[in-house]
């Protein structure tokens, strides 16, 4: 199952992203709150590993919110095994997208490693493409629902142009 639909982060999340951009502190990949309940945004339990997974990687990963504002939502849902929401600061090269895909694959491996994600599980990955336009920020959001094994391919085809996608996939395979 591969499903790609439009996705829009909440206006509060968009405002906080714009603030980080103005402050010049927006990382390559921003971990966004993936859960919204009654008008509040929360991180999911699996997001608590978001930075540990990225340790040693060349891509800069950070939470949208500082430690004091970071709250996690704990509840049980048997439908979707893992939900991620990520902001991706786009660049003209494909390196940024490769970094994003590698990061997501690392998150999946970490979840499988600690036994919280089963083989063949369905993931929901929300990606906000962040396009800098001077001091303004344009956001294109996509929601990708995909089985774990198809994540890399689905993300590349959803986020890159068709011509670039094949080359990027080859690079990923290498």
């Amino acid at each position, binding site marked *: 199952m591969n499903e790609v639909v439009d996705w829009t982060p909440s206006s509060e999340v968009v405002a906080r992203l714009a603030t980080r951009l103005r402050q010049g502190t927006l990382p390559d990949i921003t971990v966004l709150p993936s859960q919204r309940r009654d008008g509040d945004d929360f991180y999911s*339990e699996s997001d608590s*590993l978001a930075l540990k997974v990225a340790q040693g990687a060349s891509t800069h990963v950070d939470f949208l919110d500082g430690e004091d504002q970071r709250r996690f*939502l*704990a509840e049980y849902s*048997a439908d979707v095994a893992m939900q991620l929401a990520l902001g991706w600061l786009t660049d003209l090269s494909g390196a940024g997208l490769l970094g994003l895909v590698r990061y997501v694959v690392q998150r999946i491996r970490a979840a499988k490693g600690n036994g*919280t994600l089963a083989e063949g599980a369905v993931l929901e990955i929300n990606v906000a493409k962040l396009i800098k336009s001077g001091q303004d920020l344009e956001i294109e959001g996509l929601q990708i629902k995909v089985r774990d094994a198809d994540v890399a391919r689905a993300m590349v085809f959803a986020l890159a142009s068709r011509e670039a996608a094949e080359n990027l996939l080859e690079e990923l395979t290498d």
Partner: protein
Amino acid sequence: MKRTNDGLKMRGLVARTNVALPPPTGPARTRHCINEGLSELYSAHTAAWRAEMLLRRALAGSEVRGILPDGAALQAGKSASFVAQRGAERVTEWFSLRDRAFDYFRTELLLGNANPFQDYRNAGGLLRSGLNASGRSFLWLKDAALDVEADAVLGLGRSETTLGDLLHDAHCLLHRLGEIFGGLYGCEVVHEDGTWFQECAVHLPHVPLANSMGFSCRYTCTVCGKDSSSCPHIRGVSYDVQVKRSEGQSCSACELTGTRCLHSHGETVAVAANVMITDIELREISFVRRARDPLARITSIEIEASELAGRLGRVPGPKDRVLCHTCMYPCQHGHSVEAAAGPD
């Protein structure tokens, strides 16, 4: 206290603290549920075996020998009328058996032999503990059965079994211990603030509703005490930490207090990093098909006064002793894994 769609009041366990909860999903959850289910099943069988030994000794007289059922759980009911008829027969049979047992205990007591009645009393506590453990085992294994096929083979040291067999075992034991306890000791319907509640340890684990607590929180690292999403410590990996202890406070390494903690202040010990849930803000409690904690279930459910009046011929008074016979009725949920896990 919550109300169902029918307007009935109910109470339930929403959260347990100081226990390791299973992960929300994945193979680690399945492993956790199977391990807990096996451990509870072992406890239940041990308590059941000890209780039955005591009961057989208590009921060893020729007048009462062999009154315990043969070991098979109550037959599953195929229809409501079968269940009602067979259940009513079993209640009558058990009343008769219980009368015979008490006549025997009285006679022995008059002869100066208090041992049979003492054995009977001791067996009651063991039966209750085995009944509760078999109910918990049933819930853990039922959760695992949502992810794993019934014929999945599980290694138990030198032997093997299937999840379906374990679940069947827990289910049968639950009914058998429930029937013996209800039959020989009797369970009461509880009256509180004008409402009658059923707290049947056999029926409630079959109710296909679990309590899910939705809350927001922070995760704190047990090694450094900082936000675990930012600190460098990896869960499960051991780190050297310096013990901090002061009067009346728990030990920073083992969380124990007083003489239970063997660490001394300033000592360096290896501690496996873990995550503590802190700063909890409760958002909602809902009934779900599958909760994070399989034991977070309904613990008592209202019985309407009109239903009791129908059974007893009058509305009972608050101080009346009203017995519950649910555990002596056949199971209406079937014995197979599919049926046991099915409608949830």
